[in-house]
């Protein structure tokens, strides 16, 4: 084991020991402020067994993940083509950019009250908010991807009279896809954060709802379980996107070298 790994695992063990020491053995940190390992385990057993906040853990996870996936798909299906169009056509860029510049500085989370006003606390409001959150990074990166395309390649294709559909399929999309995927990663992270926030503000089920209920019940153990699950789900989804990216861009040596 390398020195780095040894020190690293020693640190993690020490942190866990300190957690146990401060909460369970000495109660330096009161159980009402931060849960002990045992409290956390009890909360975990409760949410996986009898359930908490209208459902068992898996219901909440599935609910949140499905909503994020839906919103994310809507966002990339609208954002990426728009970005490609803006990158390709100066006219489209000049036409759309001012509107985009006005909308862009509004943080995704600031759309939540508006979405609730429009669509209430249901699923449609969540999808709308995720759409707003994930839309901007997808557009920007698709746009940058097209702008960074190899100029001689475009000119060669044009000179050889490549039909537009072939051009899009074989030059535009592959050339821009590394940047597009970067945008998708940012979009996905923004989507996940935004969904959790939206569910915190108001929802019937979902991981944000678990956090919100635990906050209102003053249940630190459940808060910690919620945080851990939110973090793990976010991490797994980002990793899954990474796998898709590597499959899709297997021809791109830069991507492989980067891993």
């Amino acid at each position: 084991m390398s020195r780095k790994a040894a020190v690293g695992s020693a640190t993690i063990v020490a942190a866990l020991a300190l957690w146990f020491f401060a909460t369970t053995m000495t109660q330096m940190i009161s159980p009402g402020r931060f849960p002990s390992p045992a409290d956390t385990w009890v909360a975990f057993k409760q949410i996986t067994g009898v359930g908490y906040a209208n459902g068992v853990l898996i219901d909440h996870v599935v609910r949140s993940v499905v909503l994020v996936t839906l919103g994310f798909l809507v966002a990339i299906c609208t954002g990426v083509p728009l970005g490609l169009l803006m990158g390709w056509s100066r006219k489209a860029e000049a036409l759309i950019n001012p509107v985009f510049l006005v909308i862009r500085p509004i943080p995704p989370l600031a759309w939540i009250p508006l979405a609730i006003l429009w669509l209430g606390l249901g699923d449609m409001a969540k999808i709308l908010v995720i759409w707003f959150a994930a839309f901007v990074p997808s557009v920007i990166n698709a746009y940058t991807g097209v702008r960074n395309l190899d100029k001689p390649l475009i000119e060669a294709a044009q000179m050889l009279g490549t039909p537009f559909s072939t051009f899009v399929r074989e030059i535009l999309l592959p050339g821009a896809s590394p940047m597009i995927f970067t945008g998708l990663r940012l979009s996905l992270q923004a989507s996940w954060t935004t969904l959790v926030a939206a569910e915190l503000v108001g929802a019937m089920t979902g991981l944000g709802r678990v956090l919100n209920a635990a906050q209102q019940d003053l249940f630190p153990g459940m808060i910690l379980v919620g945080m851990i699950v939110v973090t793990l789900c976010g991490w797994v989804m980002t990793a899954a996107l990474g796998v898709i990216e590597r499959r899709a861009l297997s021809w791109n040596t830069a991507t492989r070298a980067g891993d």
Partner: protein
Amino acid sequence: MRIFNTQNVIVLGLIGFGGFLGFWTLLSVSGLIPSLFLPSPASVIERFVFLLSHRFAGGTLIDHLWASMLRFGGGFGLAVLIGVPLGLLMGWFRLLDDIVTPLFDAVRFIAPIAWVPFAALWFGTGIGGPIMIIFAGAFPPCLINAYRGAKFADPRLIEAAQMLGTPDRRMITEILLPSAVPSIIAGLRISAGLGWQSLVGAELIVASTGIGYMMVQGQGNVSTTTVMAGMIGIGFIGMVIDIALRRVEEAILRRRGLSV
């Protein structure tokens, strides 16, 4: 392809923006979407101006924005004051790096917004909660960029300094810090953006003043114009913060003779 000049860009931009506003106004004024839900752009601006001088949810728009900016300053300042020195120290002392990195990696994937329940539990609706959440959003880029910047320091410079017996403290302040500055500034911009976003999220849930709180109250009163006026305020301040930091970045890079 026709020659594309600035004038065309401006004309097309105006058409695009005008079309957007026109479409919005049409939807609202025609009653296709009730103006309660989609007020016309004019009434949103009117409400924005009204809120500048009239109190809503405990203060004028200026009061709320000011409260938000103070919190932002607190959380962001704390993140910079802790993150940057810690990043530099980690870039110099290997042991510290090995100790902090696994802990940091375990914590930084937690979305800032997921800290909200603990923030509420620990601080109530006081000023501490939002500051903690802004800190959670703004801290990682500060630390990461200071660390990366320190690692970019020219090894020859470090070796020369080491040979001359430079103490650790001066090594960090006089060698690592100067070479890390461009990376740190870039980190500050990311950090400020994330911090501002987290602030809005925090204020939606745990606050009794601030622009996010004003928007939630607007939502509760079904006052779409207030919510939209709040969005304008948030976007505007976020943009001002970003432009200010970009200016700082340009000034620093220029002073060091690096092109922007």
